[in-house]
């Protein structure tokens, strides 16, 4: 077993454990922290796979911005824990069994059914660096890039519409 594999498996284990932590932690803040950890491990995977720049982006956007937003909302609402609720009994076991079956199927497809994995390419210099990504992003993927700007604008408008105090409440 090479070091690379050992690294991979230990990171994978962390990723899975933190994922499961998200599933079972009672407190929403812990769940968020597990997820942050998970995102960090994924960022390391990106590095292993030659995506230096997106690894940085992953850390700053996901772990840095999005998760902070999550934590922020949790704190504001004070919604770390939920009260008792009348959950339907069969829902949970069925979901878990379902997931296991899904995993078996996925494993089956990936290990036995797909074509042999292609040998990894040797990567050119600067692959996955800011320059190479920026080059592709602003040439080949200019349209999607522009669309994302609109998307963010729309999300902003939406968030404002949904949260800002109603003027109509007073007027009507």
């Amino acid at each position: 077993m090479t070091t690379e594999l050992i690294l991979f498996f230990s990171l994978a284990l962390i990723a899975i454990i933190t994922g499961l932590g998200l599933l079972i932690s009672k407190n929403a803040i812990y769940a968020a922290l597990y997820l942050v950890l998970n995102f960090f491990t994924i960022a390391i995977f990106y590095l292993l796979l030659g995506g230096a720049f997106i690894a940085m982006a992953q850390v700053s956007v996901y772990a840095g911005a999005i998760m902070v937003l999550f934590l922020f909302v949790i704190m504001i609402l004070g919604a770390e824990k939920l009260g008792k609720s009348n959950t339907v009994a069969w829902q949970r076991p069925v979901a878990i069994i379902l997931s296991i079956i899904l995993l078996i199927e996925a494993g089956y497809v990936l290990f036995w059914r797909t074509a042999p994995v292609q040998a990894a390419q040797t990567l050119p210099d600067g692959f996955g660096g800011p320059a190479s990504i920026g080059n592709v992003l602003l040439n080949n993927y200019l349209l999607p890039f522009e669309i994302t700007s609109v998307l963010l604008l729309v999300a902003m408008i939406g968030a404002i519409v949904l949260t800002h105090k109603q003027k109509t409440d007073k007027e009507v």
Partner: protein
Amino acid sequence: MTTTDLLSVFPLLILILWACLVLLLDVFLKRERLTTILTAIGLVVTLGFSISQNNLNLTGFNNMVVVDNFAVYLNIIFLGSGLLAISLAHDYLKRMGINRGEFYVLLMFSISGMMLMAIAADLIVFFLALELLSIPLYVLAAFARPRVESEEAGMKYFLLGAFSGGFVVYGIALVFGATATTNLSGIAARIAEHQADIPLLTIGAALILVGFSFKVAVVPFQMWTPDVYHGAPSAVTAFMAIGAKAAGFAALMRIFVAALPTLSEQITPIIWVLAALTMIVGNIVAVAQSNIKRMLAYSSIAHAGYILMALVSYGQSSVASVSVSAALFYLLSYAVTNFGAWAVVIAVEKAEGKGLALDDYAGIGRKYPALAAAMAIFMLSFTGVPPTLGFVGKFYLFRAVIDGGYIGLAVIGVLTSLISAFYYLRVVVIMYMRDGEPEVRSEPWLNLTTAFTAIATIVLSIFSAPILQWASQAILSTF
């Protein structure tokens, strides 16, 4: 960026810029009426540009987008839907006390997402278009906040949308893994060169199918529909029922017909079952509804099933174009009828979610004969009784399905549409045969919409030839 690139997205560009402009003007002028008018103007202008793209057949942005007649046809449906939605919403928003200018801005952004969906030719663009059309709709569904039903509708729609979005992304990832590209023509080329990993590709395609099935509300991915349609403001629901559905089908048709015809051996049986289930469940459960919005929601599910029938034979290149044009025509007929029906629903609806029970339609036949006649026309069109648009649409659809050799599915379609007669005609029976004291909102734009769609439902069915020809040309240029 070349001129062709610019030309290919020009209407889209106009609409997005216009939306930003309206957003600014709305903030500074605070005149809702002006916002409405400006939005309408923007949509009309965009419509003009869209129509002028007919027969141009452009590709732009390194094959990211394709502007063919298929896209132009759909764009016209989207923009027309937007215009009808505005004329419905204009008075409705005021009555419900939710008259805010952002409604129109979000509507325009959503339409731009749909238009992007229609011209998309790359899976990434499909995904972005899906989000661009959905995110404004989540907000619009919750637009009647702080009414708890509306917020709940928004939340459910959002959860299902985000969840299904996850499937779409994962599906795209697998397709990318199987073919090393996300471009539709690239995928088709890789498959043709036998360089694609077919099992992985199939799973990816299946996941994309699942994701879009949520969006177009196909059984068993339909269960959010009645709740969301019920809770969302009616004007939004009317728009959602057409726009989101048409866009979802546009994506399905484009992806499967253009890129994945070789997978039809595996995919076709799935679509067959989905279509059959959707028609059966949608129509049977609709019988049990006592709320008109929920009934129309189930009816929209059932119609999704009919449209999906057209996709069953997508792999047979000789039939595919006929099927797609049948589906396109059906979308148009469904759009016209559906807006009419929702216009009537809006006319009868009162604030606080009142006036939505079927019983509230008692006595309309006597007191408001014209409105009742219009509603009867819409119900007959939904049922597929001639001479209405619904009939012509079903006729083509069934014919396409039979041509594809799926007689069994056609039989299920016919049988379920007979079941549907039961609940559609019930509305007619209640309107004409039960006594009641209904109060109906009468407002020029609303009445105009009702009258326009009612007349169109009848007249276009008799003179449907030009539209059909247009629909049949709409696809031929794609392939």
